[in-house]
């Protein structure tokens, strides 16, 4: 339980040595820092140093965003937020900037806002654009922006926050969930901060400050007194010492390991870096992804794949394409419907992704994917994918799938069981190949990242 406690923080966050850079580690980097990659991308990455590969991920940009924007406009025209879910799935499947998308997903879970309550897809989309823009930017700027984001204001009821009776919802969540963590503020701080946000409204789908509803009186927050505005209140929260620790802990859980919760000592160097950089998200991500610890055996395979990582990762690895509307709709059964986080805390992740229903749903998603004619691999069938990569014998196929898909190696028994499935049977080779992919996806190993 105390693996982290024994880790030397100095060693942990020092840059990893470029030797011993393998396909396995490149696959790890792309699984965690993106949504997995094709064998071709991985082999390109192995020709770089790990630090070059990380820089490539951090600096990647989309060649063109036209296709995403065109698709967004057409799904927004339907007014159905379910289509927006499909839109993001499409982008995740095709993106050339996977780390930015991964962080956009992180911030979506962090500043969780659900279309269930907001009901306006346009506003949900705008928030997604905002999160993507600031994904690797300055946290302070992001917090100021998200605090006046119409979808957020509607979701946390701040849009109806009046002078006479402040609504505490946003004030509570900005401290508890967005910046500081439970226990780092008092109920009094929440009540006073709520007064700062009075008069922050949404009118005609835009943020508006209603000065008639703003409480201009003196407020005392964290022991400081003044006639603070909403922005002053946000700055007071940002200045709290517990913030960088809180955020770095969450980033480490997301990118490095679900459990156990990292120790204060382990987080301290990252938090210091974050503070020193003036809360630049990129600095922390850069440090994490380049580190000894990130590439260590204590970390590879020690996270549960999220549903999005599970589905998108499978398709990106196998150069797959499918009906992304149907795929997006199925993700709900796995417990992660984009734009519909379960509550203000977002997706908890880790072991909570796994239960008997979500496991069956994972298996059924892949079953459905593989049974569909429209699902393609490298533009054709699994047979074509195998030909492309010159995989001939059943053992070659299983080993290739294993190396590209799995963070944790299969046991010899399971491996030979799969090879036998591929060797024997009266079914056509394409069906047997798909069945083996299916079985791998149902294995406990494939649930880990």
């Amino acid at each position, binding site marked *: 339980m105390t693996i982290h406690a024994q880790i030397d923080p100095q060693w942990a966050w020092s840059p990893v040595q470029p030797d011993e850079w393998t396909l396995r580690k490149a696959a790890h980097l792309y699984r965690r820092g993106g949504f997995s990659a094709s064998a071709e991308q991985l082999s390109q990455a192995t020709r770089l140093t790990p630090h070059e590969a990380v820089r490539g991920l951090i600096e990647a940009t989309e060649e063109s965003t036209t296709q995403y924007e065109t698709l967004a406009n057409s799904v927004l025209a339907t007014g159905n937020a379910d289509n927006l879910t499909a839109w993001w799935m499409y982008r995740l499947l095709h993106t050339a900037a996977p780390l930015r998308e991964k962080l956009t997903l992180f911030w979506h879970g962090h500043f969780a806002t659900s279309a269930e309550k907001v009901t306006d897809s346009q506003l949900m989309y705008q928030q997604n654009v905002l999160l993507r823009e600031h994904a690797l930017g300055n946290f302070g700027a992001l917090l100021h922006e998200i605090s006046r984001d119409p979808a957020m204001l509607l979701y*946390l009821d701040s849009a109806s926050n009046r002078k006479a*009776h402040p609504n505490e919802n946003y004030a*509570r969540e900005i401290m508890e969930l967005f910046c500081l963590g439970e226990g780092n503020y008092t109920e009094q701080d929440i009540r006073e901060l709520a007064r700062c946000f009075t008069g922050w409204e949404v009118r005609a789908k835009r943020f508006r400050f209603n000065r008639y509803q703003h409480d201009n009186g003196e407020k005392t927050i964290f022991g400081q007194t003044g006639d603070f505005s909403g922005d002053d209140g946000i700055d007071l929260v940002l200045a709290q010492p517990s913030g960088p620790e809180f955020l770095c802990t969450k980033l480490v859980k997301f990118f490095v390991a679900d459990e156990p919760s990292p120790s204060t000592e382990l987080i301290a160097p990252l938090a210091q870096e974050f503070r020193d950089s003036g809360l630049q998200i990129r600095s922390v991500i850069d440090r994490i992804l380049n580190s000894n610890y990130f590439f260590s055996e204590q970390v590879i395979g020690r996270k549960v794949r999220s549903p999005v990582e599970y589905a998108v990762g499978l398709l990106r690895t196998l150069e797959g394409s499918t009906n992304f509307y149907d795929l997006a709709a199925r993700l709900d059964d796995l417990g992660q419907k984009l734009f519909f986080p*379960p509550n203000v805390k977002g997706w908890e992740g880790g072991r909570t992704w796994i239960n*008997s*229903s979500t496991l*069956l749903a994972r*298996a059924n998603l892949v079953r459905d994917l593989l049974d569909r004619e429209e699902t393609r691999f490298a533009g054709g069938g699994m047979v074509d994918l195998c030909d492309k990569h010159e995989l001939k014998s059943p053992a070659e196929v299983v080993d290739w799938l294993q190396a590209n898909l799995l963070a944790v190696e299969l046991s*010899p028994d399971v491996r030979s069981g799969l090879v036998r499935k591929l060797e024997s049977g009266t079914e056509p080779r394409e069906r047997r190949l798909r069945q083996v992919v299916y*079985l791998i996806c149902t294995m406990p190993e494939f649930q880990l990242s």
Partner: protein
Amino acid sequence: MQFTRRDFLGLTVTGSAIYGLGSTAPRFLAHAAERAGEQDRVLVVIQLSGGNDGLNTVIPFRHDVYRKSRPQLALAADRVLKIDDELGFHPELTGLARLLEAGELAIVQGVGYPNPNRSHFESMDIWHTCQRKTDQRLDGWLGRAIDRLQHEPSSDAIALHLGEKKQPFALTSQHWRVPSVRSLEQFRLQGNQETQAQTIKQLVESKRSNSSDLLDFVQSSTATAVDVSQRFDQIGKSYQPKAEYPESALGQKLKTVAQLIDAGLSTRIYYVEVDGFDTHAQQAPAHESLLREVGNALAAFTTDMGGQGQGDRVLSVCFSEFGRRVQENASSGTDHGTAGPMILAGAKVKAGLIGEHPSLTDLEQGDLKFHTDFRQVYAGILEQWLECESPSILGGEFEPVSLIDG
């Protein structure tokens, strides 16, 4: 017609023991399941997530403070369903009023805990684990109860979570994986290969050489999932509800629970959730519809259980992580508060009000003061219903509230 458990005993073993995997778990347990018998009592936990407004559930309709604190939200005396001269149910709780009249409903008032936490997540964790944040939380109170109730693998999972969301912490056990089931229809492996489930099971259960804690967890969870799905394939189609269930999500979940109980599962604990009680804004319409959902579903379920001849062995209990502030806010809603009522239903409950309504004049920071610790209610459930000793489960001695008749 009752579908007897013998019809499918020995078909599969569900609820795999965590420690039973890899090595072959004993699979003979037909007689053990039989011995567990149809007499064992069942607990159904209904979680009202988001913080239910207790004051507008069991309403002190005559009280000045109530009316003055809630110019928008107070319900007038002529609208409430009177329980006595002072208190009444929300008008949408006709289902509960009916149960109360039938002597099948108990309301424990003023339930909470010291130093209340107003964070949904923290407070929910406290209710689930009976531990504070500073304690090391490894399992939930029901998980610990499960560990006392079951010592060997059985043909049915000892507890089931019916829901589409993440599994409640309360059900986390040291020794058993509790299955989460979204719906009976969804809960099966798709595909036309009959041997598919068997193949997966075989591969999943084969021994791992590079095992880690996390891999073990996923491995045993997968084995449980396949087991339970095979078991549910065998569930009889003979169930005929003896009450009309509402179409609501809770109504349908409780109907599923009824179907499983009727099918003779030896499962002792069922867990369901209703979300949406976090009514910060425009509370009235949302709260009305939630209470209607809870009241009608619970009434249908309790009536159905009675009609199936199962009434004496089923107890349902509703709780929420906190109540809401006495004073309403500017958005015609209420913010996070503290104490609230717990509601229990079943043929065996000690019907009526238990404990006083919390004072509306003696408040703490605008919030009601609790007088009954939730762990006292848990103690009552554990000792009087599930018949296990409570102190080791609750982490201390709590005077049980007397909940059960006779």
